[in-house]
């Protein structure tokens, strides 16, 4: 890993650096506007649409795509699939950054962000779904932080603390699975309170199940998608084990994703049948629902299966990207497109450009922090002092 030589000749002002710099400057300006002028100055939110892009994309999509952490650690530590071990640290890092950015984004969306800890101290009861989501996200962010710490501790040379944290791996993995199951499904359950606002094709008593199962698909696909990108941009940071196990991880996760997608497709169809919503399929919303169901669920399910059968690595990577896009489409459909569907178009929500800037700002921060950590800490390679230990 002669990264010094590889990075020494890289130009400081690459297209990525320039775009990231512009987004960061714009994001910083909008941040000042948001916290001085309030939500009205920077968003199109209203009493009809209190949840916009910052909840639909930053929170719902962010949490779903961060599911790779619990999916991968459960596969490796609980189900004993040690051949996927090299994927654990990148997945945990993505999960930790994903959840950290979700909480960061909530500071923009919540009218009075200093009240974020209120559910734990000032509240009317613990039966609220939003309390359940808040409690699980706070606890799981803590769990992910502890799961992530062995990498910085190895980097900083704190052997004793690192060894103590590694001993907690199984406990943390079990906690991660429990907390993720609870809040991934609860995010879907939040919409159960609005049966008259959400379009019948997306509204279902099974929404918590849909959200949880699709989060597993998101997690599996995100690990493949991110692994492909990491192989392209951080190739020099990977050790032999990572490079050797890369294909195993991709094909193993692709097979799992194909299987879960088949199950997800089935329960979505059953969801339509249970409420007898077949007649809505012939409407405009029905066409869009079919695009989501056939284009972003059935198609990737088939493509993953073909890619695994033919041992086609590039098809696996493209399908993973397409599936991740499908999860984005699904979460935006539930929270924005199919929400308040009966309202006249003048009352419908479309994000303000400043909301889009903040979402891009948060994604950019995530990418930059990911790059900072991966280029310095033992994420895609083993630290020489701990060879074969974790």
């Amino acid at each position, binding site marked *: 890993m002669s990264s010094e030589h590889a990075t020494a000749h890289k130009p400081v002002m690459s297209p990525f650096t320039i775009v990231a710099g512009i987004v960061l400057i714009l994001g910083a300006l909008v941040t000042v506007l948001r916290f001085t002028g309030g939500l009205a100055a920077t968003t199109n939110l209203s009493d009809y649409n209190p949840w916009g892009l910052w909840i639909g994309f930053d929170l719902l999509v962010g949490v779903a795509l961060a599911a790779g952490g619990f999916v991968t650690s459960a596969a490796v530590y609980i189900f004993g699939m040690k051949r996927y071990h090299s994927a654990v640290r990148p997945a945990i890092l993505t999960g930790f950054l994903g959840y950290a950015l979700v909480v960061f984004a909530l500071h923009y969306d919540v009218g009075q962000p200093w009240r974020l800890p209120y559910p734990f101290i000032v509240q009317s009861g613990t039966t609220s779904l939003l309390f359940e989501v808040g409690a699980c996200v706070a606890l799981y962010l803590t769990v992910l932080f502890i799961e992530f710490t062995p990498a910085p501790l190895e980097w900083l040379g704190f052997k004793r603390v690192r060894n103590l944290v590694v001993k907690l791996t199984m406990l943390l993995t079990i906690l991660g699975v429990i907390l993720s199951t609870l809040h991934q499904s609860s995010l879907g359950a939040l919409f159960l309170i609005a049966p008259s606002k959400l379009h019948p094709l997306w509204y279902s008593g099974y929404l918590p199940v849909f959200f949880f199962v699709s989060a597993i698909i998101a997690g599996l696909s995100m690990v493949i998608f991110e692994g492909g990108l990491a192989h392209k941009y951080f190739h020099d940071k990977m050790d032999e084990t990572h490079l050797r196990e890369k294909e195993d991880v991709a094909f193993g996760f692709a097979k799992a994703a194909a299987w879960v997608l088949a199950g997800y497709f089935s329960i979505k169809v*059953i969801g339509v*049948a*249970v409420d007898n919503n077949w*007649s809505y399929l012939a409407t405009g919303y029905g066409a869009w629902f079919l695009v989501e169901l056939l284009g972003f669920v059935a198609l990737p399910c088939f493509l993953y299966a073909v890619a695994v059968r*033919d041992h086609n690595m590039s098809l696996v990577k493209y399908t993973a990207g397409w599936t991740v896009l499908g999860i984005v489409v699904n979460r935006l459909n539930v929270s924005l497109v199919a929400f308040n569907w009966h309202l006249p178009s003048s009352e419908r929500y479309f994000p303000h450009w400043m909301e889009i800037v903040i979402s891009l700002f948060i994604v950019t921060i995530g990418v930059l922090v990911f790059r900072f950590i991966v280029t310095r800490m033992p994420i895609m390679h083993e630290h020489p002092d701990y060879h074969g230990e974790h």
Partner: protein
Amino acid sequence: MEYHFNTLHDFMVYTKGVVYILILAILIGFVAFWSFLNGRDPDRKPE
């Protein structure tokens, strides 16, 4: 697909009937999909 229901019982009988048929088709479909998915799997041990 439009069907007129007079009672909740009518509705439940109709929708449950459709769901049971779907589940049967899904179970058969899963077997077919599993064999398609593992069709050329190099890791699969010969029987």
